[in-house]
């Protein structure tokens, strides 16, 4: 379980997150969505320990982030953060990269070899497994970077925009299924950000909407649908929650054009 207590963060004078408190239950797939520049990545970075918030703190399974060297090392093994844009070693092969990540996290060698091979199959990268990463296309690079949190078998995955960055439909489908099964069968907690509501409905069971640095929505999708009434799709409901002014903006635009 992840607990966020009164977190406030600002880089300059504008607060990006203001006094945020919430709890993310274990085994949930939580989507963090919101308009651009509203603090989704900052929120995930606070969860991941990438930055120390100006105020407040984060606890993972009762252990406070950055509280001591040993605890933080243990948390880094438990919770893996994958940023939206990674740096990958150009001249290493995909297999070398994945095995390297696994070794860094002390995964047993034999299991590592097998798991790496299965990940290449999952993302249709088997033929490229022993080619340098510089030969990979943008989408293939995204796939190999997405394979790295999976190979370390972390209990908590913090993924920043995992479904963007040139991922093809097969890759999106594979990732979606894997995340669902990891949460349902292994009890993994998955928190990811997404720029558009369309990706949320099938990939998440919980939703956090950040708007103006504050939590606008923090609930399970099922409860949200119940609250907002029947006869509407998740997408419609999300659009109303996240971008309430969008429909009006479109209407205003065309109204202006006709005039």
């Amino acid at each position, binding site marked *: 379980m992840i607990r966020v207590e009164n977190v406030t963060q600002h880089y300059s004078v504008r607060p990006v997150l203001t006094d945020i408190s919430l709890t993310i239950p274990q085994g949930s797939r939580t989507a963090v969505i919101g308009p651009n520049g509203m603090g989704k990545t900052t929120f995930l970075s606070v969860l991941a320990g990438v930055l*120390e918030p100006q105020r407040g703190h984060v606890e993972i399974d009762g252990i406070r982030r950055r509280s001591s060297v040993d605890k933080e090392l243990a948390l880094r093994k438990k919770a893996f953060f994958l940023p939206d844009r990674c740096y990958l070693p150009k001249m290493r092969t995909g297999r070398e990269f994945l095995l390297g990540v696994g070794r*860094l996290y002390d995964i047993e060698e034999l299991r590592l070899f097998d798991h790496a091979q299965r990940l290449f199959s999952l993302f249709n990268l088997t033929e490229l497994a022993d080619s340098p990463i510089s030969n990979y296309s943008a989408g293939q690079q995204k796939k190999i970077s997405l394979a790295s949190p999976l190979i370390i078998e972390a209990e908590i995955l913090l993924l920043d925009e995992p479904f963007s960055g040139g991922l093809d439909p097969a890759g999106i489908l594979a990732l979606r299924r894997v995340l669902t099964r990891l949460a349902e069968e292994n009890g993994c907690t998955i928190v990811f950000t997404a720029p558009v509501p369309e990706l949320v409905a099938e990939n998440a069971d919980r939703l956090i909407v950040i708007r103006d640095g504050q939590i606008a929505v923090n609930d399970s999708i099922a409860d949200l649908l119940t609250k907002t009434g029947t006869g509407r799709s998740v997408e419609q409901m999300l659009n109303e929650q996240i971008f309430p002014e969008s429909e009006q903006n479109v209407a205003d635009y065309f109204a202006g054009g006709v005039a």
Partner: protein
Amino acid sequence: MKRFTIWMREVLPPKWLIILMAFCYLMSIAVPQLVLYYFDLYEIQEETGLLKTPLFCLGMFAIIFGLYRSGAFHPIFQNDYREWLAQTPWSHEKPLPRGPVYLVAQDFLILCMISSLSYFHDPELWLITPSLFLIAHSLMCLMSFILTQEYRYAYVITFLLPSLLYLYESPGLSFISVAIIAIISHWGLRKAMRTFDKWSGEQNHFLQTNSQLAKEMRLKNILGWPHDSMGPISSPKNPTLGWAIALALQAGWWSFSVILQISDRPEFLSLIIGIGIGLWVCSFIPTSRCLSGHAPPINFWGRMRTGRWIIPSYDKIFLSPLVVSCCLTLATCMTLYFPQSLAIIFGVAATFYVFFTIYFTPDLDEWRLTGNHRIHPGFGINKTELVQTQ
């Protein structure tokens, strides 16, 4: 004869090295003679110093042999050998399979031979060759003590080494001093070999630095962001307060001894200015390790506009270079007022320099894992080796 050869082979360097040394020695005799003959310099042969060439050559052999005797036989310097030995039932009472790490009778014979040749070339300076052998051997032992975590022996040897600066004009006294250092090295070696089980294991921080930790660090460096900064990797710890003081005193003693020897030389001032600038730059190295990949919690404009010009929990990393700068400036000013006490001033300055550099720099693990900063990938990313995903 065959038994003698087998007995000697226990400690002898490889054949090719012996042949090379013999060839060099013969050349060091022949070439000066040829030069003296060709240029007809026999009348001033003493002034040319050409006749000292064989002695110089023998001194070099003594150094090479001294380094070889410890470096090639001590398991700490040979990863494969050490790892294999750890798998066998070997214990310190038994002889080492690759040959003795302690000095033995064969070494004495070889030294006698080199010393006799030295005596033949220069009856006054011949003691330099065995001294050089013992210094080289002790220096390798010193390194082994650091790696085997016998820090006390390493400290004592390092503390005694500057005595040679005071005694170098008297080969006899130098030799006695070196012999004392060699005896301490021998005790240290015995102590280290008795604790083989401890230092060959995983808990040895320096061995981890050499193998496992280095492997992790290499992995970390080649895997890119976020693994380089967010991976669960430990860094070497800072020395304790006691060791920080001990190391600082050691640095002060060395500075005092060296400056006492060179302060009357004409190039002293420029040398000291150069060293001072170098030391000042070096004081930023620990800070740069903390700065690398760790941005302040709020940016520069944020600091200005919120009035939090100083953030103690982040800005503490600048304390060490700041104090060191003050220390060096103070030392420079003091030399102007007390030019006759240069050695003392620089000795004290070096003591404080080392102490502040070690003690005021945050422990890298503490800083990386619990510090008040933002981890960011831009700093130190090697863009020629890494590619950014879209």
